[in-house]
């Protein structure tokens, strides 16, 4: 399986491609476009127009889904800068060992039905997720200062790390749902 290819979500919402999007402005734009082109507003129109409204709305919704998440936004900007994240990216062994151990702890807590322990593990990982995401803004802000390749490589590293963190948190949520 290869990576999902994305159309330009910034373009779909008529926004300049940048990391520090104002969440309020993004929401406003999304609502405003939805009001104009939502298929419900074309319910009585000819089918070709209804189909056009449906496909535009889908593009707007898909773009919003991506841009409202800082991490996904960063992925798009990274891809637009020509840096791809592959299927088999390798992180440093120390990190992988740590994740492996944390996964074992989670599995143990889950089997024991120890919800408090699952909650603690989730909290630790969530703090880490927060720190990684918070670190993205300064990195993007520093772009254009001459060391772009190194910055993009660091962003890529953060995003790959975040994938592991997210997957771990998904498992925590699943355990907490039991």
């Amino acid at each position, binding site marked *: 399986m*290869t990576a*999902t290819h994305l159309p330009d979500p910034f373009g779909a919402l008529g926004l300049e491609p940048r990391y520090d999007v104002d969440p309020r402005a993004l929401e406003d734009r999304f609502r405003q476009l939805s009001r104009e082109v939502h298929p419900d507003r074309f319910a009585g129109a*000819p089918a070709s127009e209804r189909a056009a409204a449906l496909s535009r709305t*889908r593009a707007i919704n898909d773009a919003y889904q991506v841009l409202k998440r800082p991490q996904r936004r960063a992925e798009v900007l990274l891809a637009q800068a020509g840096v791809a994240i592959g299927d088999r990216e390798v992180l440093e062994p120390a990190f992988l060992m740590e994740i492996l151990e944390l996964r074992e702890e989670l599995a143990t807590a889950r089997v024991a039905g120890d919800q408090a322990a699952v909650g603690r593990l989730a909290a630790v990982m969530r703090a880490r997720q927060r720190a990684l995401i918070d670190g993205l803004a300064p990195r993007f802000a520093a772009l254009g200062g001459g060391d772009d390749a190194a910055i993009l490589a660091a962003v890529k590293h953060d995003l790959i790390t975040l994938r592991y963190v997210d997957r771990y948190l998904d498992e925590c949520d699943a355990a907490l749902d039991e």
Partner: protein
Amino acid sequence: MLLQISEPGASTPKAACRERVVGIDLGTTNSLVATVLDAQPTVLTGGADAIVPSVVSYDGAEAVVGRAAVARGEANPVDTVASVKRLMGRSLADVAAVAPLLPNQLIDDAGRMVKLRFSDGRERSPVQVSAAILDELRRRAEADLGGPLGGAVITVPAYFDDAQRQATRDAGRLAGLEVLRLLAEPTAAALAYGLDRGTRGTYAIYDLGGGTFDISILTLVDGVFEVRSTGGDSALGGDDLDRAIAQVVLAEAGVAADDRAAVRAVVGAARAAKEALTDAATTALAATVGGRTITRTLTRDELAAIAGPLLDRTGKACRRAWKDAGFTPEELDGVVLVGGSTRSPVVRDYVRALFGKEPLCELDPEQVVALGAAVQADVLAGGQHDVVLLDVVPLSLGLETMGGVVEKLIVRNSTIPCGATQTFTTYADNQTGFDLHVLQGERETVEACRSLARFTLRGVPPMIAGAARVEIGFQVDADGILHVAARELTSGVSAAIDVTPSYGLTDEEVERMLIESFEHAEDDLVARNLRTERVEAERILAATRAAMITDVHLLEADVAVATEAAIATLEAARAGDDYLAIRAAVEGLDRASKPFAERRMNLAIAAAMAGKSVATVEAELGR
């Protein structure tokens, strides 16, 4: 058919007829139909009660629905179906927990949707039973409105998965309804509330019905109703509380919990006692089991204790929903109560404590969903309300990949309609097919998610391993139903797909049921199709002509010629009796006018992005 397999962009959404459209709340316990009269949503009664119990009896030659069916059910429980909503899009294994408590004979259909067998020797799908309820509602509405319905919005629990939504839509089709939209119940309720109050802000809708629980967090701004997150349990409701009470009573009386007749007798008494406790602090519960009468007093505190574990399940879903929405309960502007079960003070106390605020319940919790659905039907039919509903897909959708892991293509709480694509490649030389497995759910493994369908992709051109690139497109429509399309990218071949739905009915099955449901099947079906296609032709002709006048400057000469020709063809076809010819001519007009429609849409988007009126943008573009 569970999965709609189609060419990308080939499917077109439905159009609403402008008159006599209704909203239907197809509930587990009760159903209602409503419409907008003089800009006011109103429940229709057909000269009887507004509330129709969702009970169908196959005791005699014809299906009987509602109160009459409830009466028959006492004498003949085996041939009377209640709470059929719990069986929609579900296999026998899925409903193992409730099946032993139902008086009906349930049959496994090779792991697909469960069927019911009746004394008349016939087997019926839950879809057919639901269609009987919808048919009754349709007749009541037609009696009140004085003519055939132009279409209906049918509500579904927000947490209904793809199979359950498909089953509901199929039931609408079987009942002879043009299903304009499936609408999430809490969203419908928000619509009824929001319009009444002219509200702005972010609200939680807590919807506890007879058999399902939903929680939705919505933001209302200037007529846009944006669902931020939704959650719930499509098998948790007031029915479960009745059973929990019954179990306590039976245990105290020393009656075995697997005595079906005894359980049914006590469940009825438990429900009555529960309802009595809405107004009283104490009530008497009495039931006759095996000739012996069991009596007991039940207090509201005891009810709260019994309800505790069930309410905690709703609490868990609420916490996840507000977390997904990125809100804390303190940040919410209010929590709205929907569903008959929220009449109970025990439930109200729980919600008040959970959200830390007094719940809102000005509108009748049993009518509010139907009223909201009526408003949405009116909007779709071109009515006055200036609102847009942005609903979400409740559960993530994905594909099975190597090692039984699920790769999510669309994550839960994505605004619908939405889509995603994923590219696959071949792993063997000259491989011409793929097996794909579509799943819905949040977990990582195939076993922990719900299977929607398996399909086989054929006709991929033979190439060396890894050379072919097959793009699988997932598209979720405005009803929350998934459509899958596939294309081989290097050759441009649209591969053929064979679908095996895991639970739903195939198109052929729905068609057969439809034919069976008509007395003079063929004639009626042809007449109905002809009527529908003529109405559609009328509508598209009018809309196209209107657009050609208002936006004549966007109409290029060659497109204008092609569109005029297609209009002439359609007019000729409409005069004839061949509904397939009309349908083909409608499609022809669509194709011809497509470039024009695209230009009109582009202009609307450009204007919205620039925050200007269409006229200003046109002026700037020098038109």
